[in-house]
């Protein structure tokens, strides 16, 4: 079995290449997509439990490109000229995720603890979270276009992970709590992945007026950004609570206003403001999208914060 260093040398560049292949394939699919707008109002036909506009017809294709939206009787149908290419794009992303999973499991076996102990491991795990969140959303909504915003983030993080030393280091005494290390950082990874998806939806929403290629309905993007934030927020909450629990165990204080703690709180407050703004002020559209972009910027700020903020999390770099 190759060492984790050899795996890092092989797997991470492969993951990067796969991400780029998937990104290029998705861009090709989107740029070569042709749109026709036939009326698909089908004649009502009898049949128990069947819709008059049968979803098994062409309307179901519209569903695929509109986030699973119910087929409207007057919906425009977007043709998919490169069906095979889409499968390759998704396949490349799945293989990239699988490779990352293998790598992270190998590191776990090698080190005996969750693969979150240093900057390299956390960066790889972050990529894993982003790809996993994207694939789940793609599976649920079939919104392939999201990849155009998600995969560049994943690729940049992969590059960053490659740039960091992959050697296995001993676990710092403060991190020697396998359960809380795994749970606290694991929830951070899941939250950050969901936040990246919400960012992607928001970015596409904001770019939509300028890029005609973005054919997803703005309401769908708006809703998707919101739903991803709804997932992000509790995950962030659990991450912070687990962090407080760990801090109390290790340092005897559940909250020390450590810069990284504080940055995580800023992130949490931004997502809280987003969700409240949606309820209270009906914040949708551009305003909501900008807040989600800000939220993900705060995620990145919290993630990279230990490099320039110092504090009790400085060993995480």
């Amino acid at each position, binding site marked *: 079995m190759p060492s984790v260093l050899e795996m890092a040398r092989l797997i991470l560049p492969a993951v990067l290449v796969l991400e780029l292949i998937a990104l290029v394939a998705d861009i090709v699919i989107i740029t070569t997509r042709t749109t026709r707008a036939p009326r698909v109002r089908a004649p009502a036909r009898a049949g128990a439990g*069947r819709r008059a506009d049968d979803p098994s017809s062409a309307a179901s294709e519209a569903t695929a490109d509109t986030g*699973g939206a*119910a087929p409207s009787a007057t919906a425009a149908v977007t043709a998919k000229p490169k069906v095979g290419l889409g499968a390759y794009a998704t396949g490349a992303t799945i293989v990239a995720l699988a490779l990352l999973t293998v790598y992270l499991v190998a590191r776990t076996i090698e080190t005996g603890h969750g693969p979150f102990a240093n900057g390299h491991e956390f960066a790889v795990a972050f990529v894993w979270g982003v790809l996993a969140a994207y694939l789940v959303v793609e599976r649920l909504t079939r919104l392939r276009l999201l990849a155009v915003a998600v995969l560049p983030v994943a690729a940049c993080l992969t590059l960053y992970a490659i740039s960091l030393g992959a050697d296995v280091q001993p676990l710092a005494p403060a991190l020697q709590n396998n359960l809380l290390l795994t749970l606290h950082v694991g929830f951070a990874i899941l939250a950050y992945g969901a936040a990246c998806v919400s960012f992607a939806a928001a970015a596409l929403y904001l770019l939509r007026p300028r890029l005609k290629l973005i054919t997803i309905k703005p309401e769908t993007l708006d809703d998707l950004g919101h739903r991803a934030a709804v997932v992000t927020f509790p995950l962030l909450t659990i991450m912070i609570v687990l962090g407080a*629990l760990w801090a109390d165990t290790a340092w005897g204080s559940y909250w020390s206003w450590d810069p990284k703690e504080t940055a995580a709180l800023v992130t949490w407050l931004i997502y809280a403001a987003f969700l409240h703004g949606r*309820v209270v*002020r009906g914040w*949708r559209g551009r305003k909501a999208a900008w807040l989600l972009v800000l939220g993900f910027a705060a995620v990145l700020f919290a993630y990279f914060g230990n490099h320039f903020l110092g504090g009790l999390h400085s060993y995480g770099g």
Partner: protein
Amino acid sequence: MSPADHGRNDQPEPAVSPGEFFRRVYQFFYSKTVGLILILTLAALVLLGALITQATAGTYDDAMSKAIFVQDMRSRYGALTGALDWLGLFHIFSSIPFLVVAGLLAASILACTIHRLPQLWRRHAHPPIRPGDRFFARARYRATIATSRPTAQATALASRRLRQGGLRLVADGDDPGRLYADRFSWGGLGTVVAHLSLLIILAAFVTSSLGKIDANLTLGVDGPSVAVGHDSGLELAASEFVSQSDAAGRPLDYMSHLVLSRDGQVVAEQDVRVNSPLSYGGYKFHQWSYSQGIDVLITGPGGVLTDATLAIEGTTEDGAAGASYELPGSQTVWFFVPVSGQTGADSGIEPGQALIEVAAGDQLVAQQTVASGQAFVLGDYAFTFEGENWITVIAARRDPGALWMWLGSILLVAGMSLTFACRHRRYWARLSPGTDGRTRLELASSDPEDVSFRRLFDQLATDLAEALDGVVLDQTAETGADTGAETEPRAETGTAPETGTEPETKAGISDTPDTDDASDTAPPDTARAAARQTRETAHA
């Protein structure tokens, strides 16, 4: 001044009764807009706290510490340092603006929660079950199902199907052709739990800041016990300290074996590591830091001055590590040993020896190199070097707010899970004979744009069609923003309020549920359109 002006000034100011005053204050605090502004303000303050270096606790309580800290900050912030200090941005989390915003937010959360409870109860116990015609025509989610079954039979079948789907069914006693079904009508309680949990967490912070015991105890290994203090009667000693590193010097483990005693009796002892503190009687003892030290015995005219381990304070250029002790008067005694791992080649101090110097200010008074166990006698003083040793610093903590923090955290996560996973979903159905002799079932719902709910709604429409041996004739899920689709059910004009009537109900909107929940909020433009329609209906 004109007579008219004079007259106006003579009029007494309209009195605001205490009740009215408190009502206005309450209104201010339960405004969710106020809450939103407070959240954003708090986020901005916290962000400043993350970006600007914060003084450690207690720094600003001592003028000297503060001056040193501010001076240090000048190298980082330059000319801005004074302004940042004046604004309190170096201790933002204990500053007045931060505490005021946090307090106002707590008041806002409390008021919102109190205000919301009756609304949630009404929504659960008295849902609006009879919306108007316009709602079925313009609801965001709507479907029409046609069946050849008679209306009464279709109603019974639809009711059964809704119940089978796990929905709570509320029938309209006056009109059997009207059905209301919902799921998770209690889901809104999640927001109450989550908001109350935030209050508990804020209370935990206050409790911690007021009642927390936080002391660092410096223990020499195998040295004398140190009193924990705070009337605990406890004394702590370290019988062993281990610091392990790998070949590259990376730390592997810090461990102190601590012995806790009371009245000379050992009450607890344990190997304490960073992640495994010793807990006893509400106190926790954490491995905080460590350093090298020098065991000394100093006696003076009155007897023993100290018999302890002095912490190494620094190293000299020639490779000696020094620790000091202030003698009565203005003299200081320094003990120097070779830096760990070095011979005495540079400093002239061999391993196992110590150089003892007595100084008055910058003036050296006397010095002598002694071996371990030997004393340097100077006048009435005797300075004995007893050997090198480890010093382990243990953080003694007792936090009465911690329990509340964990309670609040559990409730916060539980409340959020309820809020997001158990969203209140509502469906309205109306069955009536159609012009073609078939029964029409109109199904509608009012949730905001939501892809997954759209699927649920479609599936329910399909299931109902199947149950009725019917067909879905028309199904629309347009967005309110684009089409002016109605997002809340409204009663027919002139319909007397039936159930779920809101206190502010006016003609035409008799059964409009409150709209302060994510699942019910209409976009502002849609809400305005609905309001316009309402006014038109009322006029009609």
